[in-house]
């Protein structure tokens, strides 16, 4: 029987543990002191800096870099945390190439931006490693706030509310807090259980109680919260996954990329995590890249991303696409799934149809291709599941399938705010969720204390 990487079907132990460990090493290793100072020296300390404008949380980037350059990384971390208490994770997962670093004037000048993300990590790591807490709770306000979801939006909201002295209770459906930071990000971007370390760092301010394993719509209803708390913040993310809408997708081996990534993040021993020998990932976003690259790193022999539009339409950044290619993932464009081919109930391949744009509309070209596959991941977007929310008697207004909020994060219901991926008009970025949670907390504080 074939061993290791040659095992057909979905199998574990394709690679030795040592190889796996090497494969899942830090994508962007931390800068050491020398590297950080050299890099910090490259910053021009721009006026009204473009990088700062591009940051959804408006971190004063030139200032924090200047603080690194002047030998004050701890002060630098405070500059970051003032705007973004999850600055440590954002330093790891932000697509900086499409945010701050894209508009860095040195990108304009030399095609080589200051490595803002890595510098941010240097500063935040320095402070967090030293256990340095910068914020104290104000004296108790006597007000209580419930937060649904302990992801980036909920945590940022909770921290800011705790600073104002409000008593915060966070309800989290999953056993661990952190949201997508814990369950949804590629493992090589956040090593050493950083997500949990960050949750601990954020909640160390005090005044934040977390109840894990408590799901909205199952364990409590929104009305329970609005009745018992002075304010409610909804940050529950996206629970639904889009279907392939391809024939036979119920076959064994057709899985959600999100679940695969989550299992991978929770696995104690990655060599025990099964993966296909030939993997096809359907989608064009970050989730598709994360699933594809990690499949490859686990030992899958052939990994192909199939995306129904062109390279320029992919949600995954250029950097992420290159990362996939560098790891041996093949990215194929203009292919949409038509039919999952199964043998004995198990997937054995997928039939895809070539596509094209016709008058701006995506159309199939009739021509098809078959790719052998013993595992197919769906990574074609997540959806907001309003059932748990509105199914319990509330009628919160939605927009485009997600919660409608105003510029301060207020929903259509009194005393209920929302932020993160579950709200309409977002960009599904961790850093944006942090900004929305933080700003909603400011709005809640104004409402409670006004």
């Amino acid at each position, binding site marked *: 029987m074939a061993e290791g990487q040659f095992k057909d079907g979905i199998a574990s132990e394709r690679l030795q543990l040592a190889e796996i460990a090497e494969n899942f090493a830090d994508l962007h290793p931390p800068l050491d002191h020398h590297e950080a100072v050299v890099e910090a020296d490259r910053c021009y300390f721009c006026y009204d800096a473009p990088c700062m404008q591009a940051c959804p949380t408006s971190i004063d980037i030139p200032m924090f870099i200047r603080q690194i350059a002047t030998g004050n990384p701890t002060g630098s971390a405070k500059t970051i945390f003032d705007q973004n208490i999850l600055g440590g994770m954002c330093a790891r997962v932000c697509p900086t190439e499409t945010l701050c670093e894209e508009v860095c004037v040195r990108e304009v*000048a030399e095609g080589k931006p200051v490595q803002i993300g890595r510098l941010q990590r240097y500063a935040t790591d320095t402070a967090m490693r030293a256990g340095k807490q910068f914020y104290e709770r104000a004296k108790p306000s006597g007000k209580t706030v419930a937060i649904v979801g302990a992801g980036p939006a909920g945590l940022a909201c909770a921290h800011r509310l705790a600073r104002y002295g409000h008593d915060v209770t966070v309800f989290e459906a999953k056993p661990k807090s952190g949201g997508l930071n814990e369950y949804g990000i590629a493992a090589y971007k956040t090593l050493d259980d950083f997500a949990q370390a960050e949750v601990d760092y954020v909640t160390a301010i005090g005044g934040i109680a977390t109840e894990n394993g408590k799901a909205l719509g199952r364990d409590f209803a929104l009305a329970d919260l609005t009745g018992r708390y002075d304010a409610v913040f909804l940050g529950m993310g996206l629970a639904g996954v889009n279907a392939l809408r391809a024939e036979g997708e119920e076959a064994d081996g057709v899985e959600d990329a999100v679940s695969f990534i989550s299992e991978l993040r929770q696995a104690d021993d990655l060599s025990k995590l099964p993966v296909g020998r030939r993997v096809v990932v359907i989608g064009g976003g970050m989730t598709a890249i994360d699933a594809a690259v990690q499949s490859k790193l686990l030992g899958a022999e052939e990994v192909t991303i199939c995306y129904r539009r062109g390279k320029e339409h992919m949600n995954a950044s250029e950097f992420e696409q290159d990362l996939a290619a560098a790891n041996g993932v093949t990215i194929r464009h203009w292919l949409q799934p038509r039919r999952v081919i199964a043998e004995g109930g198990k997937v054995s391949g997928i039939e895809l149809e070539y596509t094209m744009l016709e008058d701006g509309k995506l159309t199939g070209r009739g021509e098809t291709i078959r790719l052998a596959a013993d595992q197919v991941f769906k990574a074609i977007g997540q959806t907001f599941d309003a059932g748990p929310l509105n199914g319990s008697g509330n009628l919160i207004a939605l927009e485009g399938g997600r919660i409608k909020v105003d510029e301060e994060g207020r929903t259509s219901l009194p005393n209920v705010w929302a932020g993160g991926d579950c709200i309409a008009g977002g960009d599904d970025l961790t850093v944006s969720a942090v900004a929305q949670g933080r700003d909603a907390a400011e709005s809640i504080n104004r409402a409670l204390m006004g």
Partner: protein
Amino acid sequence: MADIRSNFVGIKSPNPFWLASAPPTDKAYNVERAFKAGWGGVVWKTLGEEGPPVVNVNGPRYGAIWGADRRLLGFNNIELITDRDLWVNLREIKEVKRKWPDRAVVVSLMVPCEEEAWKAILPLVEDTGADGIELNFGCPHGMSERGMGSAVGQVPEYVEMVVRWCKQNTRMPVITKLTPNVTDVRKPARAAHAGGTDAVSLINTINSITAVDLDNFAPEPSIDGKGTHGGYCGPAVKPIAMNMVAEIARDPETAGLPISGIGGITTWRDAAEFMALGSGTVQVCTAAMTYGFKIVEEMVEGLKTWMDDKGHATLDDVVGRAVPNVTDWQYLNLNYIAKARINQDLCIKCGRCHIACEDTSHQAITSLVNGARRFEVIEEECVGCNLCVNVCPVEGCITMEPLAAGSLDKRTGEPVQSVYANWTTHPNNPAVRVAAE
């Protein structure tokens, strides 16, 4: 190709690049490496009188300041004159000069301020076959406390006296090295000239403390928790040195006195600038101590290339050429009007020109034009101060453009005058006498 051979007060060298009297010239090993690398000459590290050599500290003797990327900008030292035996030095000088006859070997000297001491050492140096001597009147630490170095250089009467002793007691050319730690460098230069010096060299190092260790509040370089002022040098002192060179070059009392320029020279361009201000040769130390002797290749080739490009055949075509253009403020043309111009194709939109002008100067650069990030000069406000040029990270992006005579200065609303007019004739000058009707 340009001929950069140098003949400085009779001392010949294949190029004008000498190593200054300093650690790189303390012994034959280093000096021979320098000559192999292509240096035109050396000023051997200062010899003292016969007897037990001086002793140096046994901890840090250098301090520094740095710019971005830890580029060394300024450097200081608390090292003394050579701490090697006089006879060892003299023997090595003789050997090196014999092996390298085409290179300049000048010997720096510092002995007590007594004629007998100078009379004793001069024949010993002469015997080595050295090309000349340099009088160290500049060392600002240690030796000055013992009545030598800058303690002499700061008293013009002493300078003149010692120079005269030397001129009377040796046939070798005498170069007098001046300290910048004075209010007016022309005074010791005039004194050296009066004493009959063949040339002056400057600057020696500047009194300085480079840093303070904030953990134990010790000045640096720090010896067991204490520090003392050391001699400052390197790129940071170049502007100070060039001004002092120019002051001597344009002083009617010392005009024409040969000058060996010293102070932060790091590239061919630095050297050419010193030469344009009147330096016949240049002396280098910090750049060599930072990068090694190989930098002289860049200096030699760079100088030649520039001279070829500009049609300068020999050093005489360059030396002193900028001196007539050094003047007093009161003679600057007040009718010369320039405005900054920002090349939008080169602009990387860092905005530093804007914030510098907005916060600290004349509010003459936009940050937004029609709602978009764009930096343009507002000519109605621009006084042509050059701050934006200096803070811009892109060379050549912002330039100062003179307004043509007759064109409108939007700041004053007046046309640009074609005539030269300076402060001495300006109506606002209280010293201007109203001409009789």
